[in-house]
């Protein structure tokens, strides 16, 4: 399976765009790559899932690991542009109410601003 992570900034917040598919065949690689992106001085992140097509339980652990890392640094993060399919995965695995989801990237920027206050 293939995935791609791209990182960029919006209004001083780090946005990580995650696309493709993540399962047990590539989750360790994805986790290492994502953790590397989180090793900077930022505390607030937006994880943009607009291009994420599929995620298995191993892929969800990548997000849980990232969450621990960010929170350990007294930071926070939101997801945005989550497809209905991925939202359903979050729901049945009990993560829908653990994570913060925003409909759009603009909405995510506003949300993360309020968290950073």
């Amino acid at each position, binding site marked *: 399976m293939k995935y791609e992570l791209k990182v960029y900034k919006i209004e001083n917040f780090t946005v990580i765009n995650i696309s493709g598919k993540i399962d*047990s065949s590539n989750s360790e690689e994805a986790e290492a790559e994502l953790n590397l992106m989180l090793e900077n001085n930022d505390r607030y992140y937006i994880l943009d899932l607009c291009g994420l097509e599929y995620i298995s339980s191993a892929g969800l652990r990548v997000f849980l690991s990232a969450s621990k890392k960010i929170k350990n640094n007294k930071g926070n993060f939101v997801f945005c542009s989550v497809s209905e399919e991925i939202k359903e995965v979050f729901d049945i695995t009990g993560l829908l109410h653990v994570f913060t989801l925003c409909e759009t990237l603009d909405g995510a920027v506003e949300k993360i601003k309020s968290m950073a206050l």
Partner: protein
Amino acid sequence: MDMQLNPNDGGAPVKPKIAVVIGSGGIKPACAIPLFEFLETSGINIDLLIGCSGGAIVAAMHGFGYDSSDMAGLFSNYLTKSLFSHIDYRTLLGIAKMPMGRFDKTRGILKPQRLIDVLKIIFKNSSFESIKIPTLVQVTDVDTGEGALINSGDIASAVYASAAQFPFFPPIKIGNKWFVDGAYSSPLPVLEAVNRNYDVIIAVAIEQQLKTESKSFIEYLHHFISRSYTSTQKKQMALAIDMHHHEIVVINMHFDELINMWDVDKMPVIIETGRRIIEKKKAEITAAIENFKNKKR
């Protein structure tokens, strides 16, 4: 009572150890029958079955050695509405504190004997020791509210306990404890498979379709209980995913219509729904197994 089943004794296996977990949901867990068909035709062996409530009936049937066609027939022929119509009026009077009434923790609104007798026929009065695939049945201790797993002794008693939704059905005494519906403690006991280090866990979750508006005390109570099961299930699933080391394939069985415990005439709908949803999940199950093998190479 709960024997630890360690799949990894004797060195690291190349083939993943596979557990199938079937959640609560009345007769709807029969939708897992097409999953068994798929695993069998694909040559995928199940190393452990875990079931809760209606899922315990299905898991124990498969563990006992019934094939798919047997299982659907057993549901249709034995789990009829008459099992759920034998009201214990003394209990009802007892709940209302009326004369002649009696209520204590050993009693329920329905008399259980018909259901227990049917389960004894289905499981031929056998014990877990004669079961073909190791099977665990989730129950809840009525005194402590704690979950427990049964994998020894009389199958019918354990399965009854797992499915006995208190206060509708009374608890049953196994050993020195009184047990009821496992869904009160763990509606989809995935954590039990995680704790035992199974590599690929296939979890069949039954999405409870409920009436939009409850019109009676019983409907409201059922609605509330079902919703709290779902809430517990999701919290435990999140923890299971965080703790697990490989893949948990969650199969969410959604039904478009309300199916009650006694709606055995809807068995074709249940099986067909299961077949349709399993079809979409086949690639995910296969990939989870193949990815494990590739990692171990």
